[in-house]
């Protein structure tokens, strides 16, 4: 199964975005949400333990979105040595997560999830 991982500088942001996408895509997908375990900031150990949790839940690959800056850098760093493939997506955090969730909910793999999430940059609201 392909899981989605949301990494923010603030855990409440990641968790709230997960709540929102569950409303839109249903809860059949597996989504990790992590951020700032010791307050504000991206947190390497918290990211690693959330990845381990997703793997325990059966993820054999993970599509990951960071909010900005260090969350992206740390995700790319963790991806190097991870036990499962981690695809780091260059996507807007909220809209990209929605697109990723839709792709996963309809049976998409990590690559299809990446394409859907990254295309979210091009979708205008008006």
């Amino acid at each position, binding site marked *: 199964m392909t899981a989605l991982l949301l990494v923010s500088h603030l855990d409440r942001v990641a968790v709230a975005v997960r709540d929102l996408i569950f409303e839109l895509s249903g809860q059949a997908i597996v989504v990790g949400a992590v951020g700032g375990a010791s307050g504000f900031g991206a947190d390497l150990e918290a990211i690693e333990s959330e990845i381990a949790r997703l793997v325990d839940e059966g993820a054999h690959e993970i599509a990951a979105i960071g909010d900005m800056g*260090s969350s992206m850098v740390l995700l790319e760093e963790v991806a190097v040595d991870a036990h499962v493939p981690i695809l780091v997506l260059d996507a807007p955090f909220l809209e990209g997560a929605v697109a990723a969730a839709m792709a996963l909910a309809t049976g998409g793999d990590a690559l299809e999830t990446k394409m859907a999430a990254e295309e979210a940059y091009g979708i205008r609201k008006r």
Partner: protein
Amino acid sequence: MTEAAFLDLWHRFHEKVVANQEVLNQLDAAIGDGDHGTNMGRGLGRVVADVNPAGSLRSSCRAVGMKLLSTVGGASGALWGSALVSASGALPDAPEVNREMALAALNQGVGQMKARGKADVGDKTMMDVWIPAVNALASGRSLREVAVQARTWADSTQSLEARRGRAAYLGSRSIGHVDPGSLSTALWWEALFEVVGS
């Protein structure tokens, strides 16, 4: 360079960052949340307290990198950490390294930082110091010259418009402030010169 000198480098870098903490915070506050000096000081403090000689430059460089990856919190710490972990692979599993291998490790680390940060010269980031510095060394300039020039390269970020990092959201309003990451990087080059000499 010996492992003892390598660890002394981080000691001195920590001292310089702490001595300049307010300046670094103020520069950061001009374009954001104002914690660059505090963050770097905290992460380097953990490096100084926790990283011990391992008899291997590869191990100690990796340990410094992992410590910064997990303690600094901001993008600059993640990039410093990523660069050091990468550079450690080019260092010998021994307590001493010659100049040629040290330069190769430095290039490896800067290359990694450039790739991870997706930033280049002119983007108003610490790459505005790292890249000219390694280029100057490669073309035969002395470490003394590079350490002096590093401040000038950092100062020259003042006139640039940020294209990477959080300051990029400010667009042209980022012009007129020195990038704090470029200044802390200049402090690292000054620390390196103090430890290694020319």
